[in-house]
Structures are given as structure tokens and as C-alpha cells.
């Protein structure tokens, strides 16, 4: 299982990378960041890029930047960054909870946040996270820079709005306000496996009542999305088993899961219900 041949470039500046993509993107050129998804695909020869633009050497893309309102995650930031306490507050808590579900330790050492976003696997935890937090994807090309909202970015299984000459230079996540409670639940066959269904839940409390609820489902449909009907069902309610169960039931009804060999529509729907409830409970 050896990859097909390619020409290799290792730019050290973003502009260089963008220039290379302008030329080679349309010629079946791909960006190489963490490689933890791309390289196995190349090993199976399901992907045979003729050109690889390795962005790991671009210093500008290596480190997160925490602003007063926004967390900026440039393209080469590894999953492992979020294992520690690099990010404070509820956003940090959430990212720490989520990161442990991503594959395994050695994958997290190399794989990147933005790489997952670009890959748009329905089972990707970060894709679900970007949608839950109303994130923005920053895409650069020789033609300029675009800002794309997460909810508009994912188009289908492994399909995004990204053009073939565009590089994701980073993702911006608005920081959750202090006091936001966050929960995450996922089901997979074994720990570290691709998620079959995942739910990210977050909310704030005011006078014991829920406001700013967020429920984002991943893995069940072709793209992750927030379930507004379930969120509405929580708005203004007190924290209780029954309000969580109600929201979970609605989420399970509203979602339109896809079918695959091992995981039927009904099973995924069932999981949405269980995991929505558990995500909400773990946030409480």
C-alpha cells in the first residue's frame, strides 16, 4: 500500500503556499498538513495527488492566538494542543473534552484542527465543534481571502465550500462566555474509532433557566448541524431530566440520519436521543 508518485513542495511562507496552490490546485494538487487522514487515503491510492504542498514548515501557521472574543486556530495547530490548558474558560473545557475522542494520542500529535475541518468527514469532532460554536473558516487563495461561516462550509460527506486553489489558513471560534456549561458525548465501537454519532451541548443559566442553548449533532447526517428545534425546547427551561429528555427526543425526531452497512437510520436516531441527553447531563 504505497502512495502513487507526486511532486513535493515545502513552502515556508503562506504566500508561497498560496502561489503553489494557484498553480497546482487545479492540477490535482493537495495540501499536506498533519497527513493523518490524507496519507492513509494515499496509501490506499484512493487519492493520488500529483502535487503535495507541505505547509508544516510555515511558522506563521503554527500557534493558536487567543483574543478577547475569539480563538484563532491557524492551519498547523495540532489536535494535541487542546489536550492541555492552552485555552482557558468554557471553550477550553469544551475543547479538552472533545479532543480525547479524536483517534489516539500519536494521531493527535501530528493531525491538525484545520485539516479535520478541510476533510469534512461526518465523523469529525472538530467539524461538529465549529458548527456548534458558530465558527468561521478563513480561506486564502491568489484571488484573496474569504471568510466562510461553519454552517455554510460543510456541503456533504467529505465535501466543503473550499475551492481547489484555496488554503484554510485558520479557523476562528468565538469564545464561549464565562459560566457556559459544556458537554460532549460520542458513540463509537471502540474508544478512538470513527464516531457513529456525536452530540455537543452547551448552555448558560440565568435564574436557574437555560439560555443560549446549543445542540450540535455530528456523525448522524452528511454534515454536522445545530438542531434549533431541540435548542428551542430547552430555552427558558430548568435543568431537569425531563427537559433534557424532551430535547433529546425532539433532536432524534428531527434528525435525518443516513444509512450505512452497520448503522441503520433507526440506530443512529436512537443514538442521537441517548447522546443528546448524555451531553446535556454531562454539561450540568
Amino acid at each position: 500500500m504505497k502512495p502513487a508518485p507526486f511532486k513535493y513542495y515545502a513552502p515556508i511562507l503562506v504566500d508561497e503556499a498560496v502561489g503553489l496552490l494557484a498553480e497546482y490546485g487545479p492540477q490535482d494538487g493537495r495540501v499536506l498538513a498533519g497527513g493523518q487522514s490524507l496519507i492513509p487515503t494515499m496509501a490506499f491510492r484512493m487519492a493520488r495527488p500529483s502535487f503535495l504542498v507541505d505547509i508544516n514548515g510555515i511558522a506563521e501557521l503554527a500557534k493558536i492566538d487567543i483574543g478577547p472574543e475569539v480563538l484563532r486556530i491557524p492551519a498547523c495547530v495540532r489536535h494535541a494542543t487542546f489536550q492541555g490548558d492552552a485555552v482557558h474558560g468554557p471553550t477550553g473545557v469544551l475543547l479538552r473534552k472533545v479532543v480525547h475522542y479524536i483517534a489516539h494520542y500519536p494521531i493527535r500529535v501530528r493531525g491538525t484542527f484545520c485539516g479535520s475541518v478541510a476533510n469534512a468527514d461526518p465523523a469529525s469532532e472538530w467539524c461538529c465543534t465549529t458548527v456548534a460554536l458558530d465558527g468561521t473558516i478563513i480561506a486564502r487563495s491568489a484571488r484573496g481571502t474569504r471568510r466562510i461561516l461553519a454552517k455554510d462550509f460543510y456541503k456533504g460527506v467529505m465535501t466543503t465550500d473550499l475551492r481547489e486553489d484555496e488554503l484554510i489558513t485558520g479557523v476562528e471560534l468565538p469564545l464561549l462566555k464565562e459560566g457556559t456549561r459544556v458537554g460532549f458525548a460520542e458513540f463509537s465501537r471502540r474508544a478512538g474509532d470513527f464516531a457513529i454519532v456525536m452530540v455537543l451541548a452547551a448552555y448558560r443559566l440565568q435564574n436557574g433557566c437555560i439560555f443560549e442553548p446549543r445542540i450540535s449533532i455530528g456523525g448522524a447526517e452528511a454534515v454536522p448541524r445545530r438542531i434549533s428545534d431541540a435548542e428551542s425546547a430547552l430555552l427558558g427551561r430548568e435543568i431537569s431530566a425531563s427537559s433534557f429528555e424532551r430535547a433529546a427526543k425532539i433532536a432524534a425526531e428531527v434528525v435525518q440520519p443516513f444509512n450505512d452497512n452497520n448503522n441503520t437510520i433507526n440506530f443512529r436516531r436512537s443514538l442521537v436521543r441517548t447522546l443528546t441527553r448524555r451531553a446535556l447531563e454531562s454539561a450540568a
Partner: protein
Amino acid sequence: MIGSRKPGIGASVTRIEDRPLVTGHGRFAGDVSFPRQLHMRLVRSSHAHGKLNSVDVTDAMSIRGVVAVWTAKDIEDLPPIDFREGAIEKLAAFRQPVLVKSRVRYVGEPVAAVFAEDPYVAEDAADLIVVNVDELPPVVDAAEAATEFTLGLSTEPTVCRQGYGDVEAAFRAAELTVELDLSIGRHSGVPLETRGAIGRYDASKDVLELHGAAKVPHRNRELLARMLGRSLAGIHLFEGHVGGGFGVRGEIYPEDILVLVAAMRLGRPIKWIEDRREHMIAANHSRQQRHKIRAGVDREGRLIAIDNEFFHDQGAYIRTHGTRVADTACGMLPGPYHLPNYRVNGHFRLTNKTPAATYRSPGRYETNFVRERLMDAIAAKLGISRVEVRRRNLIGKGEMPFKRPLVALGDDVVLDSGDYEQLLDKALARCRWEDLERDVASRRKAGEFVGLGIAMYVEKSGLGPTDGARVNVHTSGDVEVITGGASMGQGFETVIAQVCAEKLSIDYRKVRVVHGRTDRIEYGVGAHATRATVMTANATFVAADKVRMKALDVAAQLMQAEVQHLDIIDGNVVRTDIPSEATISLAEIAHHLRPASPTRGDRDPGLVAEGWFTTDHMTYPYGVQIAVVNIDSGTGQVHVEKVLIAYDIGRAINPMLVRGQLVGGFVQGLGGALFEEFQYDERGQPLSVTFADYLLPTVQEVPDIDILLTEDAPSTCNPLGIKGAGEGGIAAVGAVIASAVDDALGSIGSITQLPITPQKLKAMLDKHNRNGMTREQS
């Protein structure tokens, strides 16, 4: 007294194999390289069934670095791959050709072979080969009516039939009949090292070499010599380190033939290393059977008759094992129970899937599941405890040896020794069964879906008929044991060294064990069917004993003493009659036995001897497995909390290694019970071709495992009393997990299929909830 006795048989010593393996100096097939070698890459069918029209290799041949590309016409003279046991006329037409001639029969079947300077280039070239096939409808269900394999031949080449008694009369007399339709999913050994073979032809000596051989080097050598028309002296097999076998590795596959033929014809060594995707579709599958079983019992739950019809999904061809797995299933189904009347019809069916063969505890993993499901069903129907129903059916100690009018592995089934009831009681006591039952009951009241399962089983090991070993003490004092055995990681060398060291009273670390080398010893039956310890260890014991006697004989002469007043301690011969400082080391004795030594006398040179051990019967270790499981009702996920394996092994040469075998086997069995399956779609396309879809257990899936090893029933078939442990861990896992999950489900549902998946369980739970009860767990 001088010195002390070093640990030998029965000691949990560390392994002599380990040092090279922990320092990265192992020599697995992928690590073997020869100058000027070419790399072979196979082009495999992407169709499950069809007429092969053409194979276009033009583009492939034009790539720089490609030396040759072969299809069937380039190896026209080669016969199909024969059965290990020899020719079987009735099944001959179903053997696999080395490369597809006219009909492709499974996705993964070898169609062409590329030989190139570099494995990357070989794969590039293979990609460019165009295989033109007219698709035919594939057969994917072995239980459907048989169809045509080829003109005049059906996809049911044979039916494996065994039986005795009057089954019909017995059913008429039965108080109760239980009928079940049970299926075991297709899965297999999947070792971590994929297959590999390196062929080399030494023209200077006219010797053809196959490196990377495993499991049964001598048997394979015979088969290869026959297939290639070479004398035995002109072909040798060399086994290095092997990354797990489990039955799957070491059979003769098309790739082994190709590297040898290509080595001769192309005049260069040929290296082939399988990749993981290939392994999943080309190495032997196993286990897939569907059993429609009917049992008649009396009102006490005692079996009066079993009538079993099963469908064995053999895949596209009959490989080296012939119908062995299905035959074994027939013979071993009754397990440890009395069964006065029995009839079994094993429909041996060909389908358009990867061919199947043996995988650790073949025929038993499947039938243990089937039989123990039956016992649980009988218990449930009659309202008797699952323990009691088993107890009532057990063959008693006083009835041993117990002969069944059945055949398994070509051998009459004669249970040599065993106290099944005693082991059952020990197992129940060890796990505190009644406490477990109470605990499970109270957890259930609190809403948990927790269950307790039990399974009893009989294994088989020590397949003969005979094995030999040569023990040689060098003048340096080191000892070499040359065996025809094979090692795939089970600790073969250490066990043999311990046995030899015990007899010669030396440090086992001074013993080198040779295996997998047809050029060092003429005969060997390798390592399979849990036979290495039983056969080769006993042969080693015999040989070491002869060496010991020879040493004492020489020492008697040199020390002017009587043999009965001499002993060996720490590698030195000492007197036991009078206090004396005089000793002679084994090394010195070897020196005295040099050909030119004046003290050798009439004796043959060398402190060396050959020993043979022959047995006409297999031996039958036995066990009990108990498991506690918990179902997450929100997801259907099964969590195995704890497990007990109680196993009577006759005698343990190295308890630590035995435990390793049982635990390792258990975890493999867990894979088959909950995770692993080679799935196919309706077009015969394999769906589980990567480690992302074929799921092996990780450390997180492993429960607490308690092992109770007993030595209450040493084998009567060999002087060391050994029964072997290789397959004891895996054999009953499907059975015990199903039993426990069933118990957890209660009246909600019943397990009739392996693997047990969360999806299937959740569907059962959801359906039940819709019907009224609420045992929802957070």
C-alpha cells in the same frame, strides 16, 4: 551436595526468545532481503464472480524497473494447490489455481503477478494492468440452494456426515424438543504481521529456498516439491520470526508458489510482502457457519438426541485443509456431554468469497457457541438452572476414556481423561457463582442490563502421529535441540529448552532450540492444532533422556563408578554414593566423545541423541468459562466486566506462558463475539478491508480475566501428561459472551448470531421499550 537444581518443567521462567524481539533485531519476512532481489506485487480480482476475458499488461511492462509480468499462461504447467493430506479425488476440481485461468471466483483472487526492482514501482505497474471480466451473479449465502460451480459440479462438493444411534426414535421419545437457528460471522486470525514469502534459487547447489515459511515447514516442503517436480533435497524452507499464525499463516498459498517459480525462472530472489488490504481479502477466512440444530431432551434436561444441519461457508475454493473444519465441527459438537443419539449433516458450500480454512480452535469455536446456546435454551424452557442442566449431562470421570463413535481431525474421538464436574465446581467456587447471581439480580432491580454467562467445552490437542527431536551437547557445554517444530510467538523455544534443561539438569538459557529449518532435520510436523508442546516436548524429553544416559555411561567409566550412583546437577555429573569432590561436566563428556577421542570406545561419537514420541490419539483438555457483562441500554454497547477461564491442562511446563496463551486466545475470541466480521455486500464485494472496519479488540475492550489452571487430569497419552493450551482461551468465548448477553437481555431477546453488535441489541431493546417496559438506563 554441589549446586542446586535449576528451574525446569513447571517454572514460569522468562523466555529465551525475547531479547532480539525487544531490541528490534527480529527477523520477520519483511526484514529478509537478498542482493538483487525483485519485488512481487499481485493484481487481484475486483469482481466476485465472472469470466476472465483478458489481462492487458502492456502499460505495466513499459514502466522502468518492471522486469516481468505473469498471468496464468506463463505458469500453465503448474497444478492447482493440493490438499495437505494428499490427493482427495472427490474434491480435486475445487482446488485453487495459482493464477486465475478462466473464471474469477472471489474479490482478491490473484490474476497477475508483477516483478519489479522496487515495491513502489511494482504497485505502480500493478495499477496499470487492465483485467477484463464478464460479471456473473455471485453466490453469497451458503445456506441458499446449491448452484453450479462449473459444468457438472455443484457448489456443494460434499456433505460432511457423521452420526450414530436412532435419532428419529429418540426424538419421538423426547419430553421436549428445542430448535435453534444459529450463525457465526465470518472472521479469522488476522495476525499483526501480514504474510510474506521470499523465494531464492541457489543455482550453485540446485537448491530452491523459501524464506518466511511457518507452521508446518516439512509438510509444506513435501507439497511444494510435489507441485514443482523437485526432489526433496532440492528444496528447503527457512522460518525466521513469525508475527502470529493462528492457523491462517503457513498454509500454501498461490504467492508462495509464485515466488519460488519466479526465483528459478528470473534468476533473482523474489520478495513478496502482503499489505493489510490484501491480507483481509486473500488470507484464509474462517468461522462462518449457520447451524439449524434440533435437540430432544428428557424432562430433566438430559440430551437424548441432536440432529444438526449446518451450512459451512467455505468461500471460493477448497484450500489445503480440505473439509477439515467442517469435519471437526461434526465430531466435536457434543463437547463434554452425553449424547446417546446424534446425526449431523454439514453442507460444505462454496461461495464467491475469500476461501476459508482453520483459525484457532477451528470447528470448536463455532460448535461451542451452538451447543452452549442449546443448553441455555433447554434450561430456559424447562425452568432449570443453566448450571444444573449442564451438570446433568456431563460425562463422568469414571467413564474415561470415553469413546464417541465420531471422528475429528482424522482421529477417533476418545476423551482420554477428565473430571468435568470437578472443574465445574471449582470454577463456580472460584468466581463465587451464587454471590455473582445475587449481585446481578440486585443490579438488575436497580435498572442495569447486567448478565452472567457460562459455557463448558472440550478442546483437542496433541495431534500426532509422531515427532522427533535431536539433542546435542557441544564441547562448549551449550546444548542444541534440533526440532521440526515451528514458532509463531507462542514460546516454543522456551518450553523445549525447559524440558531439555530439566532432564539434563542445566540452565535452560544454555539451550538453543532450532525450528522451522528443513535443512537441519529431516522430519517435522510443525506447530498447529496445539501440538508443539505435546509432541515436540515429549520427543525432546526422550532425546534428552538418551543423552543423559549416554553421559552417565561415559562418566561411570571415567569416574570408576556405577551408573546408579551418579546424577547430574547443574550440568555436572556427581557421585551420590560417597562424598566426593570429583565431577565431570557435560562439556567434558562431550569432549570425550569426540570422534578421535581415545576414551570414546565403541560408542557413537558426540553427546547427542535422537528421540521420538509417538501417539495414536489426541488428548482432550477441557474448560469452563464464566463471564459478567453489562449492556449500555442507551447505545446497545456490551461491556464485559469480568471473566473466569477454568482450564485443565494436564500439566503446565511454563504456567506464565500458558496464561499468556489463554488470555491472548480469550481476547481474540472476544473479537469474534463482539467486533470482528468480514462483511460482504450482495455483489460479493468485501466491506471489511481495513483496520477501520475490521475491528480488533484494544486494551480498553479487555475485561479482568481470572485464570484457574488445574492439573487434575494429566493426559494419559504422553509421559509428561501435557495437554497443551494454545486453543483453550478462545474456544468458548463466543458461547460464554452470548450466554451472558442473553442473561442480561432477559426476556427481551435472544442471541442467535455472532458477532453481537450494538445495533442489533439496541433494536431489540427499543422494540421492547415500545412494547411497554421501561428499563431505560442513563
